[in-house]
Protein backbone atom coordinates (compact mmCIF):
# COMPACT_ATOMS: atom_id res chain seq x y z
CA UNK A 1 0.00 0.00 0.00
CA UNK A 2 1.00 3.59 -0.40
CA UNK A 3 1.53 5.59 2.75
CA UNK A 4 5.24 5.73 2.18
CA UNK A 5 6.50 8.72 0.23
CA UNK A 6 10.19 8.29 0.43
CA UNK A 7 10.84 9.30 -3.18
CA UNK A 8 10.94 12.98 -2.39
CA UNK A 9 13.32 13.94 0.36
CA UNK A 10 13.41 17.57 -0.66
CA UNK A 11 11.98 19.26 2.40
CA UNK A 12 15.00 21.54 2.64
CA UNK A 13 14.40 23.45 -0.60
CA UNK A 14 10.67 24.29 -0.58
CA UNK A 15 9.76 21.75 -3.23
CA UNK A 16 6.51 20.37 -1.95
CA UNK A 17 5.04 17.20 -3.34
CA UNK A 18 1.50 17.49 -4.66
CA UNK A 19 -0.01 16.14 -1.46
CA UNK A 20 2.16 18.29 0.79
CA UNK A 21 1.04 21.36 -1.16
CA UNK A 22 -2.60 20.31 -0.95
CA UNK A 23 -2.49 19.76 2.80
CA UNK A 24 -0.65 23.03 3.36
CA UNK A 25 -3.27 24.87 1.29
CA UNK A 26 -6.11 23.26 3.22
CA UNK A 27 -4.54 24.07 6.59
CA UNK A 28 -3.95 27.69 5.53
CA UNK A 29 -7.57 28.05 4.40
CA UNK A 30 -8.93 26.47 7.58
CA UNK A 31 -6.80 28.70 9.81
CA UNK A 32 -7.38 31.91 7.88
CA UNK A 33 -11.12 31.37 7.84
CA UNK A 34 -11.08 30.82 11.59
CA UNK A 35 -12.29 27.22 11.52
CA UNK A 36 -9.30 25.67 13.28
CA UNK A 37 -6.68 27.08 15.65
CA UNK A 38 -3.02 26.32 14.89
CA UNK A 39 -2.41 25.72 18.60
CA UNK A 40 -5.14 23.06 18.60
CA UNK A 41 -3.63 21.32 15.57
CA UNK A 42 -0.23 21.24 17.25
CA UNK A 43 -1.70 19.92 20.50
CA UNK A 44 -3.52 17.12 18.66
CA UNK A 45 -0.35 16.02 16.85
CA UNK A 46 1.66 16.18 20.05
CA UNK A 47 -0.91 14.04 21.89
CA UNK A 48 -0.69 11.16 19.43
CA UNK A 49 3.04 11.47 18.78
CA UNK A 50 4.12 11.49 22.39
CA UNK A 51 1.41 10.73 24.93
CA UNK A 52 -1.13 8.26 23.56
CA UNK A 53 0.31 5.01 22.27
CA UNK A 54 0.67 1.28 22.92
CA UNK A 55 2.60 1.77 26.15
CA UNK A 56 -0.77 2.74 27.67
CA UNK A 57 -2.25 -0.59 26.65
CA UNK A 58 0.83 -2.43 27.91
CA UNK A 59 0.24 -0.93 31.36
CA UNK A 60 -3.35 -2.16 31.26
CA UNK A 61 -2.23 -5.69 30.35
CA UNK A 62 0.54 -5.80 32.97
CA UNK A 63 -1.88 -4.66 35.65
CA UNK A 64 -4.40 -7.30 34.58
CA UNK A 65 -1.63 -9.93 34.89
CA UNK A 66 -0.65 -8.89 38.40
CA UNK A 67 -3.92 -7.71 39.93
CA UNK A 68 -6.74 -10.29 39.68
CA UNK A 69 -9.35 -7.85 41.00
CA UNK A 70 -8.38 -5.38 38.26
CA UNK A 71 -8.58 -8.17 35.67
CA UNK A 72 -12.13 -8.92 36.81
CA UNK A 73 -13.12 -5.25 36.56
CA UNK A 74 -11.50 -5.08 33.11
CA UNK A 75 -13.55 -8.09 31.99
CA UNK A 76 -16.76 -6.62 33.35
CA UNK A 77 -16.33 -3.04 32.07
CA UNK A 78 -13.28 -2.25 29.96
CA UNK A 79 -14.08 1.46 29.69
CA UNK A 80 -14.25 1.95 33.46
CA UNK A 81 -11.20 -0.21 34.17
CA UNK A 82 -8.86 1.57 31.74
CA UNK A 83 -10.13 4.89 33.11
CA UNK A 84 -8.66 3.85 36.48
CA UNK A 85 -5.26 4.21 34.80
CA UNK A 86 -6.27 7.54 33.27
CA UNK A 87 -7.03 6.30 29.75
CA UNK A 88 -10.14 6.84 27.66
CA UNK A 89 -11.89 9.26 25.35
CA UNK A 90 -11.69 9.82 21.65
CA UNK A 91 -11.54 6.65 19.60
CA UNK A 92 -12.09 4.55 22.70
CA UNK A 93 -15.31 5.75 24.26
CA UNK A 94 -16.54 2.15 24.72
CA UNK A 95 -13.74 -0.35 25.40
CA UNK A 96 -14.02 -4.13 25.59
CA UNK A 97 -11.06 -6.25 26.75
CA UNK A 98 -10.80 -9.63 25.01
CA UNK A 99 -8.88 -12.08 27.21
CA UNK A 100 -6.90 -14.80 25.46
CA UNK A 101 -7.23 -18.26 27.00
CA UNK A 102 -5.70 -21.64 26.15
CA UNK A 103 -8.97 -22.35 24.32
CA UNK A 104 -9.38 -19.04 22.48
CA UNK A 105 -7.08 -16.53 20.80
CA UNK A 106 -8.58 -13.13 19.96
CA UNK A 107 -7.89 -11.02 16.88
CA UNK A 108 -9.10 -7.45 16.27
CA UNK A 109 -9.93 -5.97 12.87
CA UNK A 110 -12.04 -3.26 11.31
CA UNK A 111 -13.09 -4.53 7.88
CA UNK A 112 -15.03 -1.36 7.02
CA UNK A 113 -12.52 1.33 7.99
CA UNK A 114 -9.81 1.71 10.62
CA UNK A 115 -11.50 1.52 14.05
CA UNK A 116 -8.82 0.96 16.68
CA UNK A 117 -8.65 1.61 20.44
CA UNK A 118 -6.82 4.95 20.30
CA UNK A 119 -6.58 5.73 24.04
CA UNK A 120 -4.79 2.46 24.80
CA UNK A 121 -2.96 1.67 21.53
CA UNK A 122 -2.56 5.09 19.88
CA UNK A 123 -3.00 5.48 16.13
CA UNK A 124 -3.15 2.27 14.10
CA UNK A 125 -0.21 1.06 12.00
CA UNK A 126 -0.55 1.29 8.21
CA UNK A 127 -1.08 -2.46 7.78
CA UNK A 128 -4.07 -2.39 10.14
CA UNK A 129 -5.80 0.17 7.89
CA UNK A 130 -4.79 -1.44 4.60
CA UNK A 131 -6.81 -3.80 2.36
CA UNK A 132 -4.76 -7.01 2.85
CA UNK A 133 -5.40 -7.17 6.60
CA UNK A 134 -8.99 -5.90 6.48
CA UNK A 135 -9.85 -8.42 3.75
CA UNK A 136 -8.07 -11.47 5.12
CA UNK A 137 -8.53 -11.40 8.91
CA UNK A 138 -12.19 -12.47 8.86
CA UNK A 139 -11.97 -15.19 6.19
CA UNK A 140 -8.50 -16.58 6.91
CA UNK A 141 -7.47 -15.67 10.46
CA UNK A 142 -4.87 -18.44 10.68
CA UNK A 143 -3.29 -17.36 7.39
CA UNK A 144 -3.31 -13.79 8.65
CA UNK A 145 -1.43 -14.79 11.78
CA UNK A 146 1.03 -16.71 9.60
CA UNK A 147 1.82 -13.42 7.81
CA UNK A 148 3.03 -12.21 11.23
CA UNK A 149 4.97 -15.40 11.90
CA UNK A 150 2.49 -16.52 14.54
CA UNK A 151 1.37 -20.14 14.78
CA UNK A 152 -1.14 -21.05 17.47
CA UNK A 153 -1.28 -24.38 19.28
CA UNK A 154 -3.45 -26.84 17.42
CA UNK A 155 -6.97 -26.75 18.74
CA UNK A 156 -6.87 -23.15 19.97
CA UNK A 157 -9.94 -21.46 18.53
CA UNK A 158 -9.59 -18.02 16.93
CA UNK A 159 -12.19 -15.38 17.62
CA UNK A 160 -12.11 -12.42 15.26
CA UNK A 161 -13.72 -9.19 16.47
CA UNK A 162 -14.85 -6.92 13.60
CA UNK A 163 -15.10 -3.37 14.97
CA UNK A 164 -18.30 -2.38 13.16
CA UNK A 165 -19.56 0.03 15.87
CA UNK A 166 -17.97 2.48 18.30
CA UNK A 167 -17.00 -0.39 20.59
CA UNK A 168 -13.19 -0.70 20.62
CA UNK A 169 -11.39 -3.90 21.46
CA UNK A 170 -8.06 -4.63 23.09
CA UNK A 171 -6.66 -8.13 23.37
CA UNK A 172 -5.32 -9.17 26.78
CA UNK A 173 -2.72 -11.81 25.92
CA UNK A 174 -1.86 -14.66 28.27
CA UNK A 175 1.06 -14.01 30.60
CA UNK A 176 4.08 -15.94 29.31
CA UNK A 177 5.70 -18.62 31.42
CA UNK A 178 9.00 -17.58 32.97
CA UNK A 179 7.73 -14.20 34.19
CA UNK A 180 6.87 -15.28 37.72
CA UNK A 181 7.66 -12.61 40.27
CA UNK A 182 8.20 -9.86 37.67
CA UNK A 183 7.09 -6.34 38.54
CA UNK A 184 4.25 -4.67 36.66
CA UNK A 185 6.77 -2.33 34.98
CA UNK A 186 8.96 -5.18 33.78
CA UNK A 187 5.93 -7.10 32.52
CA UNK A 188 4.68 -4.07 30.57
CA UNK A 189 7.93 -4.08 28.59
CA UNK A 190 7.18 -7.45 27.00
CA UNK A 191 3.64 -6.51 25.96
CA UNK A 192 3.95 -5.63 22.29
CA UNK A 193 1.44 -3.59 20.32
CA UNK A 194 0.70 -6.56 18.08
CA UNK A 195 -0.02 -8.80 21.07
CA UNK A 196 -2.83 -6.38 21.99
CA UNK A 197 -4.27 -6.56 18.44
CA UNK A 198 -3.91 -10.33 18.39
CA UNK A 199 -1.39 -10.50 15.54
CA UNK A 200 1.43 -11.19 17.97
CA UNK A 201 2.20 -12.79 21.29
CA UNK A 202 4.10 -11.27 24.19
CA UNK A 203 7.73 -12.07 23.79
CA UNK A 204 10.50 -12.28 26.33
CA UNK A 205 12.94 -10.76 23.84
CA UNK A 206 10.98 -8.84 21.17
CA UNK A 207 9.44 -5.38 21.11
CA UNK A 208 7.20 -3.83 18.49
Amino acid at each position, binding site marked *: *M*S*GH*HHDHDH*HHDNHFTA*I*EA*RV*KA*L*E*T*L*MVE*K*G*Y*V*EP*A*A*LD*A*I*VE*TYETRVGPRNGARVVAKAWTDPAFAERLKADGTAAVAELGY*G*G*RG*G*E*HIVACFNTPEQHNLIVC*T*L*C*SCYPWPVL*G*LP*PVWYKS*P*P*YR*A*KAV*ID*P*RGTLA*DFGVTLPE*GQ*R*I*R*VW*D*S*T*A*ETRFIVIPMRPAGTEGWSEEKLAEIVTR*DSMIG*TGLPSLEAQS
Partner: protein
Amino acid sequence: MNSGHDLGGQMAFGPVVPEPNEPVFHDDWEKRVLAINVAAGAMGAWTIDEIRHHRESLPPAQYLSSSYYEIWLAALDKVLLKHGFLTSEELLSGKPAPERREPKRVLKGEEVATVLRRGFPYEREAKAPARFAIGDSVRTIVMHPQHHTRLPRYARGKQGVIERVVGCHVFPDTGSQGLPETAQWLYTVVFTGRELWGRDGDPNSTVSIEAWESYLEPA
Protein backbone atom coordinates in the same frame (compact mmCIF):
# COMPACT_ATOMS: atom_id res chain seq x y z
CA MET B 1 -23.04 1.24 0.26
CA ASN B 2 -21.32 -1.67 -1.49
CA SER B 3 -18.06 0.10 -2.20
CA GLY B 4 -14.31 -0.36 -2.04
CA HIS B 5 -14.20 0.01 1.73
CA ASP B 6 -16.24 -3.12 2.50
CA LEU B 7 -13.26 -5.45 2.40
CA GLY B 8 -14.05 -8.45 4.61
CA GLY B 9 -13.39 -11.67 2.67
CA GLN B 10 -12.07 -9.98 -0.51
CA MET B 11 -9.04 -11.65 -2.08
CA ALA B 12 -5.92 -11.03 -4.17
CA PHE B 13 -4.52 -8.21 -2.02
CA GLY B 14 -1.58 -10.39 -1.10
CA PRO B 15 -0.14 -11.00 2.35
CA VAL B 16 -0.20 -8.52 5.21
CA VAL B 17 3.18 -6.80 5.27
CA PRO B 18 3.93 -5.23 8.64
CA GLU B 19 6.60 -2.51 8.67
CA PRO B 20 9.30 -3.11 11.31
CA ASN B 21 9.61 -0.26 13.81
CA GLU B 22 6.90 1.70 12.03
CA PRO B 23 6.81 5.38 13.03
CA VAL B 24 3.51 6.95 14.18
CA PHE B 25 3.56 9.16 11.06
CA HIS B 26 5.45 8.66 7.81
CA ASP B 27 5.43 12.30 6.77
CA ASP B 28 4.62 15.68 8.29
CA TRP B 29 1.57 16.13 6.05
CA GLU B 30 -0.02 13.07 7.65
CA LYS B 31 0.19 14.78 11.05
CA ARG B 32 -1.58 17.82 9.68
CA VAL B 33 -4.36 15.73 8.06
CA LEU B 34 -4.98 13.92 11.34
CA ALA B 35 -5.08 17.21 13.24
CA ILE B 36 -7.29 19.05 10.73
CA ASN B 37 -9.64 16.07 10.67
CA VAL B 38 -10.01 16.08 14.47
CA ALA B 39 -10.22 19.88 14.81
CA ALA B 40 -12.63 20.33 11.88
CA GLY B 41 -14.83 17.56 13.26
CA ALA B 42 -14.96 19.47 16.54
CA MET B 43 -16.84 22.29 14.73
CA GLY B 44 -19.81 19.96 15.19
CA ALA B 45 -21.22 20.29 11.66
CA TRP B 46 -21.09 16.59 10.76
CA THR B 47 -21.05 13.24 12.52
CA ILE B 48 -18.39 10.54 12.37
CA ASP B 49 -20.81 8.48 10.29
CA GLU B 50 -21.28 11.23 7.72
CA ILE B 51 -17.56 11.65 7.16
CA ARG B 52 -17.19 7.87 6.95
CA HIS B 53 -19.76 7.96 4.16
CA HIS B 54 -17.67 10.54 2.30
CA ARG B 55 -14.62 8.26 2.59
CA GLU B 56 -16.54 5.18 1.48
CA SER B 57 -18.15 6.84 -1.51
CA LEU B 58 -14.79 7.53 -3.13
CA PRO B 59 -14.55 5.50 -6.37
CA PRO B 60 -13.18 2.05 -5.41
CA ALA B 61 -10.10 2.42 -7.64
CA GLN B 62 -9.19 5.64 -5.84
CA TYR B 63 -10.04 4.25 -2.40
CA LEU B 64 -7.94 1.12 -2.85
CA SER B 65 -4.91 2.96 -4.24
CA SER B 66 -4.88 5.68 -1.57
CA SER B 67 -3.19 5.64 1.80
CA TYR B 68 -5.55 6.08 4.73
CA TYR B 69 -4.55 9.71 5.30
CA GLU B 70 -5.13 10.39 1.60
CA ILE B 71 -8.63 8.94 2.01
CA TRP B 72 -9.18 11.21 5.04
CA LEU B 73 -8.00 14.23 3.09
CA ALA B 74 -10.30 13.51 0.14
CA ALA B 75 -13.27 13.11 2.48
CA LEU B 76 -12.39 16.32 4.35
CA ASP B 77 -12.52 18.28 1.09
CA LYS B 78 -15.92 16.79 0.32
CA VAL B 79 -17.46 17.41 3.73
CA LEU B 80 -16.13 20.98 3.97
CA LEU B 81 -17.60 21.76 0.53
CA LYS B 82 -20.91 20.10 1.31
CA HIS B 83 -21.38 22.05 4.52
CA GLY B 84 -20.42 25.36 2.94
CA PHE B 85 -17.24 25.99 4.91
CA LEU B 86 -15.11 26.16 1.76
CA THR B 87 -15.79 26.52 -1.97
CA SER B 88 -14.15 24.57 -4.75
CA GLU B 89 -12.58 27.85 -5.93
CA GLU B 90 -10.92 28.23 -2.55
CA LEU B 91 -9.69 24.63 -2.56
CA LEU B 92 -8.25 25.12 -6.06
CA SER B 93 -6.64 28.49 -5.42
CA GLY B 94 -5.73 28.07 -1.76
CA LYS B 95 -6.89 31.66 -1.26
CA PRO B 96 -9.67 32.35 1.24
CA ALA B 97 -12.74 34.24 0.02
CA PRO B 98 -14.29 36.79 2.38
CA GLU B 99 -17.53 34.79 2.78
CA ARG B 100 -17.48 32.17 5.48
CA ARG B 101 -19.83 29.93 7.37
CA GLU B 102 -19.82 30.58 11.11
CA PRO B 103 -18.94 27.31 12.85
CA LYS B 104 -20.85 26.28 15.98
CA ARG B 105 -17.56 26.08 17.83
CA VAL B 106 -13.82 26.22 17.24
CA LEU B 107 -11.54 23.91 19.21
CA LYS B 108 -8.98 25.92 21.18
CA GLY B 109 -5.47 24.69 21.87
CA GLU B 110 -6.01 24.66 25.62
CA GLU B 111 -9.19 22.59 25.24
CA VAL B 112 -7.61 19.76 23.25
CA ALA B 113 -6.54 17.54 26.16
CA THR B 114 -9.96 17.75 27.82
CA VAL B 115 -11.93 17.25 24.62
CA LEU B 116 -9.88 14.23 23.55
CA ARG B 117 -10.06 12.70 27.04
CA ARG B 118 -13.83 13.15 27.13
CA GLY B 119 -14.36 11.81 23.62
CA PHE B 120 -17.81 11.55 22.12
CA PRO B 121 -19.68 8.71 23.84
CA TYR B 122 -22.25 7.05 21.56
CA GLU B 123 -24.49 5.42 24.16
CA ARG B 124 -27.97 6.91 24.60
CA GLU B 125 -30.85 6.34 26.96
CA ALA B 126 -33.01 3.50 25.67
CA LYS B 127 -36.65 4.29 24.92
CA ALA B 128 -37.67 0.60 24.76
CA PRO B 129 -36.34 -2.66 26.16
CA ALA B 130 -33.86 -4.66 24.10
CA ARG B 131 -35.55 -7.08 21.71
CA PHE B 132 -32.86 -9.75 22.01
CA ALA B 133 -31.09 -11.35 24.96
CA ILE B 134 -27.77 -13.12 25.41
CA GLY B 135 -27.89 -16.56 23.79
CA ASP B 136 -30.67 -15.70 21.31
CA SER B 137 -30.25 -17.04 17.81
CA VAL B 138 -30.56 -14.28 15.20
CA ARG B 139 -30.19 -13.82 11.48
CA THR B 140 -28.81 -10.64 9.93
CA ILE B 141 -30.96 -9.03 7.27
CA VAL B 142 -30.03 -8.87 3.61
CA MET B 143 -29.86 -5.30 2.32
CA HIS B 144 -27.82 -3.31 -0.15
CA PRO B 145 -28.46 0.32 0.72
CA GLN B 146 -27.02 3.18 -1.32
CA HIS B 147 -26.21 4.93 1.95
CA HIS B 148 -23.70 4.21 4.72
CA THR B 149 -24.26 1.09 6.80
CA ARG B 150 -22.16 -0.81 9.34
CA LEU B 151 -23.46 -4.24 8.37
CA PRO B 152 -20.65 -5.62 6.20
CA ARG B 153 -21.57 -7.61 3.10
CA TYR B 154 -19.94 -10.81 4.33
CA ALA B 155 -22.22 -10.84 7.38
CA ARG B 156 -25.57 -10.26 5.66
CA GLY B 157 -28.18 -13.04 5.75
CA LYS B 158 -26.14 -15.04 8.26
CA GLN B 159 -27.22 -16.84 11.40
CA GLY B 160 -25.44 -16.06 14.63
CA VAL B 161 -25.85 -15.85 18.39
CA ILE B 162 -26.16 -12.80 20.64
CA GLU B 163 -23.16 -12.80 22.95
CA ARG B 164 -23.51 -9.40 24.56
CA VAL B 165 -26.05 -6.61 24.76
CA VAL B 166 -23.76 -3.60 24.32
CA GLY B 167 -26.23 -0.79 25.02
CA CYS B 168 -28.39 1.63 23.09
CA HIS B 169 -26.07 3.35 20.59
CA VAL B 170 -26.33 6.07 17.94
CA PHE B 171 -27.53 4.49 14.69
CA PRO B 172 -25.07 5.20 11.86
CA ASP B 173 -27.23 4.38 8.84
CA THR B 174 -29.49 7.40 9.29
CA GLY B 175 -27.02 9.69 11.05
CA SER B 176 -24.65 9.42 8.11
CA GLN B 177 -27.31 11.00 5.87
CA GLY B 178 -27.57 14.12 8.01
CA LEU B 179 -30.90 12.96 9.48
CA PRO B 180 -31.67 13.67 13.15
CA GLU B 181 -29.83 11.39 15.57
CA THR B 182 -31.56 8.15 16.52
CA ALA B 183 -30.31 5.29 18.66
CA GLN B 184 -30.91 1.53 18.71
CA TRP B 185 -29.87 -1.40 20.83
CA LEU B 186 -26.48 -2.71 19.80
CA TYR B 187 -25.40 -6.34 20.16
CA THR B 188 -22.26 -8.42 19.75
CA VAL B 189 -23.29 -11.21 17.38
CA VAL B 190 -21.02 -14.25 16.90
CA PHE B 191 -20.96 -16.37 13.72
CA THR B 192 -19.05 -19.55 13.02
CA GLY B 193 -16.44 -19.48 10.26
CA ARG B 194 -18.48 -22.12 8.40
CA GLU B 195 -21.69 -20.05 8.58
CA LEU B 196 -19.93 -17.08 7.02
CA TRP B 197 -17.71 -18.80 4.46
CA GLY B 198 -19.17 -22.26 3.94
CA ARG B 199 -16.65 -25.00 3.23
CA ASP B 200 -13.87 -22.41 2.85
CA GLY B 201 -14.34 -21.20 6.44
CA ASP B 202 -11.97 -22.14 9.25
CA PRO B 203 -13.95 -24.71 11.29
CA ASN B 204 -12.17 -23.60 14.45
CA SER B 205 -12.79 -19.89 14.15
CA THR B 206 -15.63 -17.52 14.96
CA VAL B 207 -16.19 -13.92 13.90
CA SER B 208 -18.26 -11.31 15.70
CA ILE B 209 -19.72 -8.05 14.51
CA GLU B 210 -21.41 -5.30 16.46
CA ALA B 211 -24.94 -5.20 15.04
CA TRP B 212 -27.72 -2.68 15.62
CA GLU B 213 -31.17 -4.11 16.36
CA SER B 214 -32.66 -3.31 12.95
CA TYR B 215 -29.92 -5.41 11.32
CA LEU B 216 -31.28 -8.51 13.09
CA GLU B 217 -34.26 -10.85 12.95
CA PRO B 218 -35.03 -13.78 15.26
CA ALA B 219 -33.82 -17.12 13.87
